[in-house]
């Protein structure tokens, strides 16, 4: 019998603490598979965020460091500059990257640091209890906007890939989703390409993964993936925003 799938070596054989249907498990697997396939696990350092993935060091079977809230890209910058031979990635959620760590994100992108950022966008704060994130959709309910996000009071959601694409320092920016098996496979190609961008020494790469948080959205995992495909994808269009290889469509054949 041929085994179709197997647990990647870069992922420890432990049970994850995430809620049922949480997108973090899938995103972890995609990062770990990319490390395995590129053969860089032994020289990879990951930066775990503050958020639900704060215990990512229990799961990734590579060197890990845990940073203060939002400071992932700053720590990754220091690591990469001290140890340029290492592959450094920062794994962050939307509250971490887009709210508290916005300055670190923009400036490391502006400096063109040769690091990879994996950005999990699930449109809500997870660990702290479902507060409104900068990426929360207009009308979406959260504990700090129980009537739904009102643009007059709470402003508008931010599109990080579009924002960073204005900066000359960025080399690879793509937004993917994990709401279906086909999209998971595409997301894997994007994550792997972001790592390849760093290995080839090209500069800042970021992959934004549209993910789910069924617990804090207050819906079932199946409704959560429907929410991503029906409501998040129109607000956050999928695609390549910057590509070091020029083409906008070659990612699917990477």
């Amino acid at each position, binding site marked *: 019998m041929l085994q*179709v799938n197997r647990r990647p070596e870069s992922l420890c054989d432990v049970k*994850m603490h*995430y809620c049922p249907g949480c997108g973090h*498990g*899938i995103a972890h697997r995609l990062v770990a598979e990319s490390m395995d396939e590129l053969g860089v696990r032994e020289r990879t350092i990951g930066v775990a965020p503050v958020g639900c993935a704060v215990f990512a060091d229990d799961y990734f079977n590579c060197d890990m460091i845990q940073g203060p809230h939002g400071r992932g890209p700053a720590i990754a910058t220091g690591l990469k500059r001290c140890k340029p031979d290492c592959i450094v990635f920062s794994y962050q959620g939307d509250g971490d990257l887009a709210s508290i760590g916005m300055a670190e994100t923009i400036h490391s992108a502006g400096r063109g640091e040769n690091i990879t950022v994996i950005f999990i966008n699930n449109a809500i704060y997870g660990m702290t209890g479902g507060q409104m994130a900068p990426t929360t959709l207009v009308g979406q309910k959260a504990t700090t906007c129980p009537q739904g996000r009102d643009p007059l009071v709470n402003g508008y959601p931010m599109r990080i890939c579009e924002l960073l694409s204005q900066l000359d320092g960025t080399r690879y920016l793509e937004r993917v989703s994990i709401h279906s098996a086909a999209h998971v496979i595409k997301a894997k190609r994007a994550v792997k390409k972001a790592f390849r961008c760093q290995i080839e020494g090209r500069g800042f790469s970021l992959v934004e993964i549209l993910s789910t948080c*069924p617990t804090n959205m207050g819906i079932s*995992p199946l409704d959560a993936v429907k929410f991503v495909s029906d409501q998040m994808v129109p607000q956050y269009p999928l695609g390549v925003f910057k590509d070091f290889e020029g083409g906008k469509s070659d990612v699917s054949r990477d």
Partner: protein
Amino acid sequence: MPKVIVDEARCKGCELCTAACARKCLVMSTTFSVTGYYPSVCCAPERCTGCGLCAQVCPDLAITVFKEEKAKK
């Protein structure tokens, strides 16, 4: 015949795999597992093609898929 093995101790019953399976091979169990969730089970192995899409969407890496090797021509 392809085989889908669901690790009941890892499955948290999110049902994402039941939606991913185009041939509706996976259903939720009616008895709960050691962790207290209703895990998914493969109810129709004869329909399974071994495509592995259920494993692609499983957030807990609870699913392992096996299929027969194609005979070399």
